[in-house]
């Protein structure tokens, strides 16, 4: 997805993990993905560079769809769709 499409996405759950360092955001994402249904969209906010690499890889490995990342001022907005 391009940046414009990501900005216009209707998100079902936002996980704000900006206050934590690795592996905090990954743990928060793992917990939160259990609370949404397959096909729903989750946005993870993280100020951690390592998480910006980790979450896309983790999402793909676990059968979710990584949609893209928006780099905002000082943090990342990472979008994924929950798999079946």
């Amino acid at each position: 997805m391009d940046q414009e499409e990501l900005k216009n996405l209707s998100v079902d759950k936002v996980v704000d993990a900006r206050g934590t360092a690795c592996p905090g955001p990954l743990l928060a994402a793992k917990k939160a993905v259990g609370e949404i249904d397959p096909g729903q969209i989750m946005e993870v906010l993280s100020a951690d560079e390592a998480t910006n690499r980790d979450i896309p890889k983790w999402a793909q490995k676990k059968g979710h769809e990584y949609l893209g990342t928006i780099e905002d001022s000082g943090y990342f907005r990472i979008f994924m769709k929950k798999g079946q």
Partner: protein
Amino acid sequence: MENKKMTIGLFSGSVDRLTAAGVLISGAAADDMDIDIFVLLQGARAFLKGMGDTPEKLGMSENSEMKEEFLESLKKLNVMPWMEFFRAAKELANVKIYVCGLAGKVWGGEKVEDFDEIVDGIVGIGECITSMEESDIHLFI
């Protein structure tokens, strides 16, 4: 698909290594791995009831003279205390924590009740070796 399995021989009872172990366990739990942790010798002291939430009572394996700065830096980065990683991993995945019988006795812990409630049992080394044989990843920390 069957979950992958990680087995850890956790010998260290020092706060820096326990924190590193906690980070690794968290990553494996987020990956849905089954995790068996066998707490050996020095590690058992850190799992005695009441010790998990008092990192100041534990040593540091490296740069021991900088323990205070290390703990302060972790706090500033909002990194959870080492025991919280273990607790969080147990919530997310099938994580079992066993204390080696000998290790427990060394520190005066004879029964499972003598240890933090996240400890699942006291076992012998045979169980540890069997778990390692069956695991995809094994680590000694």
